[in-house]
C-alpha cells in the first residue's frame, strides 16, 4: 500500500479511534494549512466528530486538559498546532505530564499524545518555525517521536495512540506531508526506540531524523552517483528514547559520522549524538564528527535567507565531503 506521510498520519488516527474507544482528540488541525493534506483527515472528521473536543486557542490549558483526560482513563491526541506553540504549553508538558508517573511513584500513568507540527516550513519566520525536540530531550519522562517518512508517520502515531503508556510528543513536519512510502500494514513495526538503517553504506554514517531523513537519503544518493562515496543513513525515528547503539554500530563500521539535524546547532539533537560518539565511539572515529544543523540564528522570513539556514541535501553532501577530507 502506497501512502503519503499525511495519509499515514490520518490513517493511524482513524484506525486508533476505531480500535479503542478511549482514544479521542482535542482539536483536529493536524495538517496545518495544507489543503491537500487536510483532505486526508476528512474520514476522521466525518466518522468521529463526536470524539473530537473543540479547542480554543489555549495551548497551555489544552495540553493540561489532555494530560488530565489521560489520567482519567482516556487516550487523547491533543493538537498543539504549529511547533512553536508548544512553548505556550510548556509548563504542562514539561512539568506536569512528564513528571506525574515518577512523582506518584508509579501510581499514575499518562498516555497522552501531544501533536506538534514543527519545523522550518517556508515563510514561517522566527515565531512559527521551531523544532523543540532537543529542548524536550532534557525532560525525563517524555517520549519524543520524530518520524522521517510515511511509514513511521503511520506506525509511530498508531503506537502512541494505542500502545504507549506515557506522555509522548509527536514531532510532525509540514514539509514531509507529501513524502510517500510503500508499506505493509500487517508487517510488524520496528520497535519504538530503535533507529532504522535506511541505507547501508561503508564510508560514512549520516544520522538524520524528521525532515533531514529524506534530505540525507538524497545526499547519500548524490554522494554515490557523483562522488563514488557509500554513505550509510541512520534514521533516529525517536529522540527519546534515543538509539545510541545503532549509531555507534554504524560508526564503528564506517569510522565517520555526520549528523543532519534541523535543530539549531548548539544544544540540538546533533549535539547529543556527537556527544555520545565522543563518549562511547571515540575509538571508531577516523575523522572529526560533523554537525550539519541550522545556525544559531532565528529563522528569517525571506526565502533566500531561510534557504541559507536550511539543512538541505546539498549542505549534507558538502558536509559529508568535508568529513571524508575531500
Amino acid at each position, binding site marked *: 500500500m502506497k501512502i503519503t506521510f499525511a495519509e499515514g498520519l490520518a490513517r493511524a488516527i482513524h484506525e486508533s479511534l476505531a480500535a479503542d474507544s478511549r482514544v*479521542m482528540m482535542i482539536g483536529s488541525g493536524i495538517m496545518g494549512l495544507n489543503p491537500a493534506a487536510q483532505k486526508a483527515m476528512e474520514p476522521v472528521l466525518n466518522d468521529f466528530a463526536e470524539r473530537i*473536543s*473543540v479547542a*480554543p486557542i*489555549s495551548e*497551555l*490549558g*489544552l*495540553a*493540561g*486538559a*489532555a*494530560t*488530565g*483526560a*489521560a*489520567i*482519567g*482513563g*482516556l*487516550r*487523547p491526541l491533543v493538537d498543539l498546532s504549529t511547533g512553536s506553540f508548544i512553548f505556550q504549553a510548556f*509548563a*504542562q508538558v514539561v*512539568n*506536569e505530564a512528564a*513528571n*506525574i*508517573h*515518577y*512523582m*506518584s*511513584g*508509579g*501510581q*499514575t*500513568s*499518562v*498516555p497522552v499524545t501531544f501533536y506538534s507540527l514543527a519545523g522550518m516550513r517556508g515563510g514561517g519566520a522566527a515565531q512559527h518555525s521551531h523544532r523543540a525536540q532537543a529542548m524536550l530531550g532534557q525532560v*525525563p*519522562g517524555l*517520549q519524543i517521536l520524530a518520524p522521517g517518512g510515511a511509514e513511521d508517520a503511520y506506525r509511530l502515531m498508531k503506537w502512541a495512540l494505542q*500502545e*504507549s*503508556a*506515557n506522555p509522548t510528543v509527536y514531532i510532525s513536519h509540514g514539509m514531509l506531508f507529501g513524502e510517500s512510502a510503500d508499506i505493509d500494514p500487517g508487517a510488524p513495526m520496528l520497535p519504538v526506540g530503535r533507529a532504522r538503517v535506511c541505507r547501508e553504506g561503508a564510508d560514512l554514517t549520516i544520522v538524520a531524523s524528521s525532515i533531514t531523513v529524506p534530505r540525507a537519503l538524497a545526499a547519500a544518493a548524490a554522494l554515490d552517483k557523483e562522488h563514488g562515496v557509500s554513505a550509510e543513513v541512520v534514521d533516529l525515528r525517536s529522540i527519546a528514547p534515543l538509539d545510541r547503539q545503532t549509531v555507534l554500530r554504524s560508526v564503528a563500521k564506517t569510522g565517520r559520522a555526520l549528523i543532519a539535524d534541523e535543530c539549531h546547532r548548539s544544544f540540538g539533537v546533533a549535539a547529543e549524538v556527537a556527544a555520545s560518539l565522543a563518549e562511547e565511539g571515540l575509538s571508531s572515529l577516523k575523522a572529526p564528527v560533523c554537525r550539519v544543523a541550522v545556525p544559531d540564528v532565528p529563522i528569517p522570513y525571506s526565502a533566500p535567507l531561510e534557504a541559507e539556514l536550511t539543512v538541505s541535501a546539498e549542505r549534507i553532501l558538502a558536509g559529508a565531503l568535508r568529513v571524508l577530507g575531500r
Partner: protein
Amino acid sequence: MPSLTPAERIASMLRIRRFEEQCITLSSHKRFPGHYHVYIGQEATAVAACAPLLAGDVIYTTWRNHGHLLARGADPGRMMAEILGRAHGYCGGRSGTLHLSVAALGIPATSALVGGNLPLAVGTALACKRRGSGMVVNFCGDAALEEGAAYEAMSLASLWQVPVLFLCENNSIPPELRKRGQFTSSTLPAKRLADVPGSLCIPTETADGADAGALGECLSRLAAEVRGGSGPRFVEVRCTRWPGSFPLWPELPCGPWQLDWAFEAKPGREDLAAWNEQSDPLSLYVRGCVAAGTLERGALQAIDARVREEMERAVQFALASPFPDASEAYGPVFAQAGQAR
C-alpha cells in the same frame, strides 16, 4: 449522598489539625528537608468538600494538600512517611509533601505549581463526562487566579461543560499584615475572585471557611449540581489565615491546639487568641456543637484522645520506615505499555 454527623465532622477536622501539628514538630526537629505548607485553619473546607464524594470521583490538590488527602481517607502513616521521604510513603519518597498523591483514592497527581492543577482537573472531568460517571473537585489557593493556566482551564471547563468544582481557598493575608519576604497574597485586581470565573459563565459562590456546618451544606449542594451534569461550578472559600503560618516555616505559637480553647481558655498570644475566637473553624464548630447540646465535652475529649493517638502512631510508623534504597531514584520514569488503564 453521605452526610457527616457532628462527631464525624469534628473528628475529621481534628485529624487534620493533629497531623499538621505533628508535621510542624517534625520539621522543627529537622526531620525533613525543603519547604512545606500546613492546612491548619482550613480544615472545615477539606472535610466539607470531600464528604459528598464517591468512589471514582477525583480530587486535585496542591502543595497544601495534607488536609485534602486526610479528608479523602488517606492513611496518615503513609502520608507522614512520604513527607519524611521514606520508603513506605505513598510515592516511595519521590514526592514528599509537595506532590503527595494516592491514586487508589482518586488523588492521581498533585501539582505544586500555582494554577498547575486546574487544567488537569478539567481534563479528568472531560473523561468523567465521556464515561458518564464521576466528578472532579479541584482545590487551589487564591494565587491560582493570577496564573493564565487557571484562566484557560476555567474557560475550557465552561466551554466543554464538564463536571468539575473549582474550590478556591482564599487564605490571603490582608495587605496590612503582610511582611516583606512573605509570599505575596492575592494580588489579583478583581473585586471578588469569583468575578473571573463568573465572566466565563461559570456559576460562582462565596462561602465562609470558618463555618464548618454551613460549608458542609454549601459544598454538598455544589457537588450535587456538578454531578447532576449542569457544568462546572466555582466557589471561593474565605479563610482567615492561621497566625502560625505567617512565618515562612510554620510554627506552633502556643503549642498544639487545646480543646479548652473552644471554651473558656485562650491561647496565650494575642493574634492567635483573636484568630481562635473569630476564625478557627474547629474551635467555632466545637463550641457551637456543645452550645447546641449536640455533643458533650467528655465525648470531645474522647475523640481528641483517639485522634492524637492515631497521629502519634502515624509518626512512629513514618519514623520507623526506612529511607528508600538509592537505586530507587532511577524509576519509575516510564510506565510499561499495558500498564495504563
